[in-house]
């Protein structure tokens, strides 16, 4: 039992360091928005936002221990189960979500969320094991290679983007918006703009850490290939904008594009500084709350001008984005 407690202690330390280092939830624009909006929103939005907040639970904290090392430790089957349960309880999202629901709804809702979290966690763990046995069910494998010199890079970048939960939060919002559009007798056009903003928001933090999933090893490869910095950064942006335009297409795509340009223009700054470690199947952690706030204000302003005043403002947004791409592309070319 002493050994088990030592492992749980080490795991808790690792999770805590991870939270401090990555600022994983606190600096995610969308999570902050959900946190603020949960108390103000109606029942429908509460369910959607609550569900989205539960997403981070699909990441297994026990994955911090290398599987080979875990298998080598002399633990009994019972200790193994205890370790899995303890690892679930270490997930900060469990406590945040449970606490939020107890506070905003009822203790029963909080307990329900904990049970739902356990189910999501178990399903995600099973899926990841299953997908290891049957690699062909990995849907990301089927993303086609795009044409052009950096087409392979864009393909890789789309895969990376679809390996983080931000994109799926956007997908849930997009599907919810489509259902609303089809099911409502008189759909409110203003709601489409709102959903576009929410989708853009859900993706925006990723724009601050475009190289996160490449890690140091992939980042070094970028310095070895004969490509300009703007080409490397542009391949990242192309993947981001492609996903954003697809998700916002049924609503207000031009406003979404304006928000995307601004999210990238600001996000290039922390991204070009180098990769910040980012685990897959988690929400991304942005560089800072202040930068995230600045990014969101610019995104919302640009999208509002394009949606309510003039589409021509999209050209200004594109110009700002191109300027940022050029400048931070040059920064990226600096070897050290």
């Amino acid at each position, binding site marked *: 039992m002493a050994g088990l407690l030592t492992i749980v202690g080490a795991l808790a330390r690792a999770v805590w360091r991870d939270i401090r280092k990555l600022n994983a939830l606190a600096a995610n624009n969308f999570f902050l928005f959900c946190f603020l909006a949960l108390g103000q929103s109606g029942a429908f939005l509460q369910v959607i936002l609550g569900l989205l907040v539960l997403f981070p639970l699909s990441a297994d904290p026990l994955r911090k221990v290398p599987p080979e090392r875990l298998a080598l430790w002399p633990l009994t089957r019972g200790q193994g189960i205890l370790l899995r349960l303890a690892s679930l309880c270490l997930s900060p999202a469990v406590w945040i979500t449970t606490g939020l629901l107890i506070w905003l709804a009822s203790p029963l809702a909080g307990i329900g969320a904990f049970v739902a979290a356990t189910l999501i966690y178990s399903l995600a763990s099973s899926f990841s094991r299953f997908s290891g046995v049957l690699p062909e069910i990995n849907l990301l494998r089927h993303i086609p290679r795009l044409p052009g010199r950096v087409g*392979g890079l864009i393909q*890789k970048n789309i895969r990376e983007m679809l390996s983080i939960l931000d994109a799926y939060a956007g997908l849930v919002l997009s599907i919810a918006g489509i259902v609303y559009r089809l099911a409502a007798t008189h759909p409110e056009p203003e709601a489409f703009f709102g959903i576009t903003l929410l989708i853009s928001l859900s993706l925006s933090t990723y724009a601050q850490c475009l190289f996160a*999933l490449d890690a*140091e090893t992939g980042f070094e490869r970028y310095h070895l*290939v004969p*490509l300009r910095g703007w080409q490397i950064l542009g391949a990242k942006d192309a993947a981001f904008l492609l996903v954003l335009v697809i998700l916002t297409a049924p609503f207000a795509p031009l406003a979404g594009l304006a928000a995307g340009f601004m999210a990238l223009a600001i996000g290039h700054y922390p991204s070009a500084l180098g990769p910040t470690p980012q685990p897959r199947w988690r929400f991304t952690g942005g560089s800072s709350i202040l930068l995230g706030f600045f990014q969101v204000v610019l995104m919302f302003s640009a999208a509002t001008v394009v949606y309510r005043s003039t589409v021509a403002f999209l050209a200004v947004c594109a110009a700002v984005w191109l300027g940022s791409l050029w400048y931070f592309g040059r920064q990226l070319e600096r*070897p050290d």
Partner: protein
Amino acid sequence: MIACRNLTKRFGDFTAVDGVTFEVAKGAICAVLGPNGAGKSTTVKLLTALLTPTAGEAKVAGLDVRNDRLALKRAIGVLPEDLGLFDSLTVAEHLDLAGPIYGLSRSETRARSGQLLTALGLENASDTFADECSYGMRKKTALALALLHNPQVLFLDEPFEGIDPVTSKTIRDILTSVAAKGVTVMLTSHILTLVEQIATQIVLIRQGRVVWNSTRAELPGSLEELYLDLVEPPRTPELPWLGS
């Protein structure tokens, strides 16, 4: 083909590479040896434009490492220390991605990729994602990436470490073959017996400085003797509790 003079790299107060000077001729296989932290990998990073020298100058394939970075990257192939692979791409997709970046057509990329995968015994792993590959497979993928565009100069950081003997022989055969065709190879390694078999030039580095530079034929005795004498004298501390 490689020429550096007084090449120096400092990180704050620490001097990783301290006035290194040597030349490597076309078609040579130059082994840069030294203990961990001696400055071998930093030297390779300086010569491959991954780091900027603090002082001194270096040319690779006639290109300045400071001012001709893009052209230099086209002329060289690199097996970096941490392999530089993307977890979200399969082995074959790495090669598909790299070909067009180096100006190869899709068909040429496919043809060369197929040959490289076969030569390196990776044909059955071509659809495996990099993060699902064994270390040896990852290393071979990184080597295939280094060779794909037919570079003039190859830089290999510890190519023989962590791989099986058959793969090791395959890599040695490939290096000997490309060197015979005029490709210059610079490699770092700790496996002296393998180095002794293929290297035509030996450079020993200790604490960021070159302490030996000669052709293999000019070695006074065995490479191991010279290494232990000049670079890293053996020390075997007593651990009395072990096995007691």
